[in-house]
């Protein structure tokens, strides 16, 4: 029973990790760029919602869509201002650029909004839900379900006209250029969608653990999810998210009493290392064969 409780809550948290990882996967799918700024984007999303709701006094039903729109524009803006200039540069440069953006945002957002933790109440109660004997955290349940729905939506999106365009671009940029697809637009769109994913994740995580800079630490979990699932697979994100969430809850539940705590922080990095050692392209990713 203890195990089931840990596993279910873990799986729900994992789905919320998956939502953060979705931003990484969307960008990687479209442009082959590792988006190491997703943690900070999530944090910015949470700050934006908090600012709209608490700072401007907007009601929540208005603040959340506004924040989504703002983050869409912010993501596109990042791509337009920073990433587009780096096309054709070595991959190490682009990784460093996104990491630089992550650090910049991590410093700038708390500096502008204040570093103390903000409470973001989106009207999910505190009291737990009981499924039989199993105690489920209400915030995690709502978060997990919303995350799953959003990831499902993004799967549907890939069947729309815009989505097919994105798929073409992720398959072969030059060929889609030749077919008349505006590749820059598509990559910009993927960053905008990453911004939306970040805003959603920011709202959920902000309501769970409060809004401050520590939200950007979700980056390492999201990276673990994205790597384990395969960097270009949305289904992989869900599976890996659940897997990592469960591992992260179950392993400390049993091992922490033995080694004196703190193993939770270790799970994500261990999963990353093992995945890269055994199967670098992840569970569902496409194996990248480099041709000379």
């Amino acid at each position, binding site marked *: 029973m203890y195990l089931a409780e840990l596993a279910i809550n873990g799986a729900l948290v994992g789905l919320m990790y998956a939502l953060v990882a979705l931003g990484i996967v969307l960008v990687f799918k479209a442009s082959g760029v590792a988006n190491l700024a997703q943690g900070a984007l999530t944090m910015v999303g949470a700050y934006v919602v908090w600012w709209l709701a608490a700072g401007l006094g907007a009601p929540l039903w208005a603040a959340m869509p506004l924040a989504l729109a703002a983050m869409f524009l912010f993501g596109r803006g990042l791509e337009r201002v920073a990433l587009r200039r780096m096309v054709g540069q070595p991959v190490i440069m682009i990784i460093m650029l996104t990491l*630089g*953006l992550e*650090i910049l945002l991590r*410093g700038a957002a708390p500096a502008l909004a204040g570093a103390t933790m903000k409470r973001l109440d989106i009207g999910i109660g505190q009291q737990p839900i009981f499924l039989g004997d199993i105690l489920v955290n209400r915030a995690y349940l709502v978060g997990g379900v919303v995350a799953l729905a959003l990831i499902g939506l993004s799967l549907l999106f890939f069947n729309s006209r815009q989505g097919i365009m994105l798929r073409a671009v992720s398959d072969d940029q030059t060929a889609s250029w030749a077919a008349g697809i505006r590749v820059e637009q598509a990559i910009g769109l993927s960053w905008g969608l990453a911004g939306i994913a970040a805003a959603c994740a920011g709202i959920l995580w902000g309501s769970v653990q409060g809004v401050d800079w520590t939200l950007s630490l979700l980056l390492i979990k999201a990276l673990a999810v994205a790597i384990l699932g395969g960097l270009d697979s949305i289904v992989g994100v869900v599976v890996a998210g659940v897997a990592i969430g469960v591992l992260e809850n179950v392993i400390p539940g049993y091992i922490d009493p033995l080694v004196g705590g703190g193993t939770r922080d270790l799970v994500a990095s261990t999963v990353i290392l093992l995945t*890269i050692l055994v199967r670098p392209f992840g569970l569902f990713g496409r194996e990248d064969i480099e041709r*000379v």
Partner: protein
Amino acid sequence: MFYRLAGIRHTSYAADRALWPVPVDRWQIGVLLALALAAPFVLPNLYLSSYLLPWIIWSTAALGLNLLMGWAGQIHLGYAAVMAIGAYGTIHLVRAGMPFELAIVAGGLLSAVIGLVFGFAALRVKGLYLAISTLAMQYLVDWIISHVPAISGGSQATLQAPNFRVLGLPVAGDFARYYVALAVCLLVTLFLLNVGRTSFGRALVAVREKDFAAAILGVNTFYFKLLAFWCSSFLGGVSGVLLAFCYYRAVTPEQFNLDVSIQAVAMVIVGGMGSVMGSYLGAALVLLAPIVLNNLVGTLAQAGALPVSQEILSHIPLILYGGLIVAFLLFEPLGLAKVYDNLRNYFLVWPFRHARH
């Protein structure tokens, strides 16, 4: 005017291979070296121990990282973890009674070996995967250091660096510590200056430009990537030792967390990848810019001229690291070294701009 020659023309292989082909450069280096040696007697103690000393040590670290990032083209986001391994290893060895000269090498070797273990894992993959696995290494090493009491002495503990002797002389006081750091820094600088002239350096550059092409030319890419990882981790360990013994005189896990890794990467990128002088410039800018800006904004805020809160002040370093990395990658990917190089090239042929070589 300054250089008294228009362009560089070599007439012999020896001239081509010279470290400083232009006489003025040689003079510059001489003057800088003399200044560095004389600094303790000229500078006030505060400047020596809180600006010059960390700059020297961080330049050493940046040089080590630059070998990996600039020459070999591999990314490393866990450099602080490597430095931590060296620092902790050496402190424990010196405490156990090993002479410092041996212990610093042993600490470097320990870093190199552990770095290599991760390198093995990481070098089967490249680019993005390498970045993420070194990031994971940072988290793992951080965790192990702070959670194993035998290493860190407890989770919140600070290990004091013991008193140590170099070549039989006790190293006490800021002067002695400065000279120890300077000596190591000069050795590392000499090594890196010469790397570019060896087959090792040329192989690294070939691997950086395109590893498959290098393999076709007969360069064993895996071996050279590992060797670069090994050397760079060794240098990282040594600079971690300097940081622990000469600057902080103690170690805590927080001195080597992820932010420190990012700081090191920022130094390399801001300074210029693949440039020895760039490492010095980058370390200077990344170390000093937050201090200067903090003081400036703080003074202005106190004078009431600039309405900033304490919160903005405390976040200035992060904003600055991030901003510098982004700005340099976008506008001058080769960093401060390239800026200097442009200036130098301009004056090298001045006033005959058309004769740019």
